[in-house]
């Protein structure tokens, strides 16, 4: 087939004709589509009133609907942490969250951390410690670290905490940092500098 013939057949193909709907099996495609759901979320301080397909995850809402592409899709199955955002102050995986299920909540993404030109201390620490290479895991790492520091201040425990029955806030050792950041993967291997950044942002020197 000549080049023109190839291109010609593509253009002429156009949109594939819709086949008549088959006799419906249990697995048949959505015929009567379920109603979209109205929801309101505050994202980085801006209120969004939305009408959404319930299937839209918080991650896809941010990236595909609202142009907030700072939060990343690394696995879409809650395994890598690249999609970590803050919902009412808690770190969560946006990929396993339905947008509509977070109705009324305050969502903070990486784009919402800086105050104008002034970076959040965790962002600044990541920059100073060179805690990234390709940068794709970085927004998730940063949001996770922001929440981590709040959790430590609130006295939360981790699997690295020697005695969970002690109610005093855990000391933020490197071991604690690694355990508390274990939900955020980095394939470039920037882990040592990420730990250094969290340590610095937490106001400690090396342990």
């Amino acid at each position, binding site marked *: *087939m*000549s*080049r023109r*013939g*190839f*291109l010609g*057949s*593509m*253009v002429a*193909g*156009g*949109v*594939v004709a*819709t*086949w*008549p*709907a*088959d006799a419906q099996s249990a*697995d048949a*495609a*959505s015929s009567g589509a379920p109603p979209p759901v109205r929801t309101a979320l505050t994202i980085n301080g801006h209120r969004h009133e939305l009408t959404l*397909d319930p*299937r*839209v995850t918080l991650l*896809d809402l941010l*990236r595909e609907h609202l*142009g*907030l*592409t*700072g*939060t*990343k*899709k*690394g*696995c*879409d199955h809650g395994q*890598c942490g*690249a999609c970590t955002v803050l919902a009412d102050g808690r770190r969560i995986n946006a990929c396993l969250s339905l947008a509509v299920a977070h109705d009324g909540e305050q969502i903070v*993404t*990486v*784009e919402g*951390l*800086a105050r104008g030109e002034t*970076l959040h201390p965790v*962002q600044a620490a*990541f*920059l100073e410690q*060179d805690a*990234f*290479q*390709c*940068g*794709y895991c*970085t*927004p998730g790492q*940063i949001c996770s670290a922001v929440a981590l520091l709040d959790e430590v201040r609130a006295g939360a425990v981790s699997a690295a905490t020697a005695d969970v029955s002690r109610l005093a806030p855990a000391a933020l050792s490197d071991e604690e940092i690694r355990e508390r950041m274990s939900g955020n*993967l*980095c*394939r*470039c291997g920037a882990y040592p500098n990420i730990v250094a950044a969290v340590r610095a942002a937490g106001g400690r020197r090396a342990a």
Partner: protein
Amino acid sequence: MSVGQPLDRVDGRAKVTGGARYTTEHPLTNVAHGALVTSAIARGRIASIDTRAAESVRDVLAVLTHVNAPRLPAGSPSGDHPQRPSDRVLQLLQDDVVRYANQPIAVVVAETLEAAHEAAALVRVAYAADEHDVRLEPRLAEARSPKHAGRPDQPPETAHGDVDAALAAAEVKLEQVYRTPFETHVPMEPHATIAAWEGPARLTLYDATQGIFGCRQRVADLLGLKPDDVHVVSPYLGGGFGSKGPTWSHVVLAAMAARRVNRPVKLALRRPQTFGPVGFRSRTRQAIALGARRDGTLTAVRHDTIAQTSSFDEFMEPASVPARMLYASPSIATSHKLVRSDIGTPSYMRAPGWAPGSYALECALDELAGALDMDPLALRLKNYAEQDPEKHRPWSSKTLRECYRVGAERFGWNRRPRAPRAQRDGRALVGWGMATSVYPTHRSKAAARARLTADGTLHVDSGSQDLGTGTYTVMTQVAADALGVPPARVVFRLGDTTFRRLADRRQRRLRGPRRRHGAAREAHRGGRRRRALAAARPGRQ
């Protein structure tokens, strides 16, 4: 002087604020979403593929399969062996054959991501499955020398001196087999492409690629386009490690889908789909034989690697290459053989050949040191190659001895405990070891363009990549030094095929900055001349 001085990454602020745009994040209007359907079997044929349920999902625009996909132009190198060693044979819906698990077999295009994924799950495929085989060990006897060499400077086999005789006569022999497993790159950013046509013959691709010019050429070849009419853009890449070097099937499929629906199509692989169709490092079986005198002098080195490739394309993991140059020996013989398996085609991954190959060779040397009751470092020094052992040419420079010396000093090598199992760290046994590590430096033709604007900003553009390797920052420093301006006055751009027009080269880890360095320096010399002229002529830029 900026090079050699610490500098915060110039793209750092963009990355920590979420401002850096990766492949699927470029804002385009009227974009449709693609979803790939991949095979559930490893070998066989698609007996039937029923897309009716998929097509009747609301908001679905098209479903492409081998039944309705356009035929690629004749002579288009999809089924043949591709033109360049780093080009791979692709699966572009041209037939009903399944050659590996997760092979692309259909593309769904829809208005929304949710509809695309829903429909992809509804594509009903009936397979005529054949027995598949992905094993290596039971099939070693079928291993064959590759028909096509990989890199021209890496022939599959080399023979220098008489290894058989030297081994037979050796005072001490070490023969061992080392095995390394399959390894997958898994960069944080899944492979993805946005394809947008402008008219029938001009195509823009926002692609997660480590080689924008390779991508441009490959896509042009496959779709019968002029390379100048294919524009590839990749300013930020969420990791690659080699897996985004070749142009894989989904890139072309995105272009085909975009043509079909007459809209830009954004196609991202789902994470499970990044295992199979976009390369990985093959497992290896490496047989090493070393012959030596009692004093540790090597007399024979044999390194035979067997790895796997797909049933339809050849890629050779060059694990036997380090043995060709690392140590002096009067006889060296190396080989690579491939077993064809029902897997996707392997590809370059972090230090191709060097990673698995130096592991095996260094372990062999350690074992030889053990047999000789000799300090492993002393064994390396004993066999230090003062010149290339095969070509007998002097090195342009070699500071490996210095590395050994400084390393030994800093690590306290001579103070290490000699008895095995002598050191603990808590419950864990801790050992001491050393190994030589090498990575090649490749230089090739390159170009950059420099402009000095009236406000004193130096703009430098080059068609390179930064996959986390730091190209943006390194080139900023090089450009700053070339023209004697502070780095803050430099704006370096990359990742766009309109930035330069010379022959393509791919960038893997650390390759780009070295290459661009030279080009940028040259461009700046021109710039410096122009600036001197401008200073002499007030009012002109």
